[in-house]
């Protein structure tokens, strides 16, 4: 692998997306939403909430948005270039397909991480100016974990971009996957969980024990992994999800959850390279 080739491709991706300007809009949107959540997020209180509360409010909203942004960045990166015709020229250069995938991933990843950093960072600074006892480190950990989470979806999108032979089907696939992780899987998993509970035995005082298989299943949904990871890594934040809140089992550790997210990235990364190597342009 030639570093300068990879960096040239990464740089081109960054320039292309910045010139596109939509990514600037996305960063602004993150900042505004974070501020809104911080100011109006909790019922019964008004005014600025501290960063911890803001994080808990932002985890769910953020996972919705960041998965969309990552998909938008990545779903067309390969197939879009093939369809437009610029891929032939890119591949005629002395750059192999592996280097192209690495360059694109790095470039798009940088754009995504930068957007998250600017959006959340700007809002974080504004909040820090307005509340006392700010835990900056905690907030930085939150931003870092969110970046890793974003990269998971970016890599999955990259894979989609190599699988489908049309940009439009890749978009369809990305939209389906977004619904799958954000809406369908959580409903199905909770549904499965509900079938195991004998509701005739449930009284107000009963503490339900959630079986381990439920948590194991949730490892297959990066969105659940991300929200559990935030809770564990940053400490028990008061969840805005209210009664639906299920405490994490003791075997959920930062290392395990982080490992799962990294595994998602590695697996889909390898799959992307593998698919792209075989593709006719």
């Amino acid at each position, binding site marked *: 692998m030639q570093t*300068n*080739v990879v960096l040239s491709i990464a740089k081109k991706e960054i320039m292309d997306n910045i010139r596109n300007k939509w990514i600037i809009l996305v960063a602004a949107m993150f900042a505004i939403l974070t501020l809104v959540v911080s100011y109006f997020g909790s019922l019964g209180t008004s005014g600025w909430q501290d960063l911890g509360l803001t994080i808990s409010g932002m985890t769910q909203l953020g996972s919705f948005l960041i998965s969309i942004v990552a998909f938008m960045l990545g779903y067309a990166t390969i197939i879009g270039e093939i369809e*437009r015709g*610029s891929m*032939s*020229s890119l*591949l005629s250069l*002395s750059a192999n397909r592996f280097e192209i995938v690495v360059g694109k991933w790095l470039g798009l990843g940088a754009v995504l991480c930068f957007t998250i950093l600017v959006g959340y960072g700007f809002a974080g600074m504004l909040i820090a100016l307005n509340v006392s006892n700010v835990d900056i480190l905690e907030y930085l950990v939150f931003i870092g974990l969110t970046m890793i989470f974003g990269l998971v979806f970016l890599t999955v999108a990259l894979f989609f971009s190599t699988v489908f032979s049309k940009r439009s089907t890749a978009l369809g696939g990305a939209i389906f996957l977004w619904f799958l992780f954000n809406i369908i899987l959580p409903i199905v998993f909770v549904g499965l969980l509900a079938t195991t509970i004998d509701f005739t035995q449930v009284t107000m005082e009963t503490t339900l024990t959630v079986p381990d298989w439920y948590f194991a299943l949730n490892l297959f949904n990066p969105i659940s992994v991300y929200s559990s990871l935030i809770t564990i890594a940053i400490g028990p934040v008061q969840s805005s999800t209210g009664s639906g809140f299920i405490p994490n089992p003791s075997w959920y550790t930062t290392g395990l959850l982080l490992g799962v997210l990294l595994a998602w990235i590695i697996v889909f990364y390898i799959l992307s390279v593998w698919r792209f190597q075989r593709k*006719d342009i």
Partner: protein
Amino acid sequence: MVTQVVKCPNCKTTMSISGEPGEKIPLTCPECNQKGMYRIPGQKNSGTQEIHAATIEVNGLTKTYNHTPAVNNVSFRVNKGEIFGFLGPNGAGKTTTIKSMLDLIHAESGSITINGIDMKTNGKEAKKYVGYMPEKVAFYDNLTALQNLYFYAEIKHASKQECADLIQELGLGDTGKKRVGKFSKGMVQRLGMARAILGNPPILILDEPSGGLDPRGVVLIRDKILEMKKKGTTVFVSSHILTEIQEICDRVGIINKGVLVAQDTVEGLSKKLNLRPHITVSLDKMSATIEDSVKKLPGVDSVQVKGNSLEIICDGAMKAKVILAITNAGGNIQNLQTKEPSLEDVFMRYTEA
């Protein structure tokens, strides 16, 4: 096979070895058991001199889509410094061949070497020698023309100055700072040529370079190709504009329905097909004597009378004798036109259904 006498570096015992030039031979000294490697001097001989001169060599290339071969067992050679025209009707397999040559699509079988480097096993190295202009020229629309070229220049190790110069040379004037998304089809095509020749590659592969260009653009691209040839560049160019190919090509290959049906110079192909010049002679008065005197001549294929004109197809060497015969028979020639067999005739003949 070369035989050499070598000395052991340790005990100076001499021994005789033989092998091909460039070959490395492991040796053990019979006296002191010193082990070593000896390389027989000279270049590795890769066959005949002719093969050595080839810069693009395609052998037995086959690519199948849904069980239908798009390209079937195509083999050809492009020699150093020549312009090779690649012709064929739409859908004949031109672009499939070109894309396979660059490993953009993976052919089932066949080998492609560029400057002696195998494209399939060492594509990254082989591509260093190639400038390519695809059939569908596309850039990154959000970036300006210059930003686009800078990106390619970085990978091709070309300078920013060269990018700016090429934009001027291809008649794109002061559009360097304009977004490519705002370019017209013709401008994109010119920029595509600039990208192909960026970094002065020794081999150019151009897929329909004049597509979508106005006449001025066509001339510009043609001149650029000739200029590159002068620099010693080898050019492989596909086109369906036959006159353009005829003017600039040293040799042509014709592909039809995925099969390479001919590979030669234009003249060579005309000879093979026995294509002959057409002569049209206008006379002030036509007579049967004149017609007969021409028909009698050996080497005349056909004579047709159209009003006061004679349309004659004959052997190229007979032209003067035809004229002489007409004059001797009392014909008074007003006008004379000869049409040499063109690439179009060759093309039509080879791609007949």
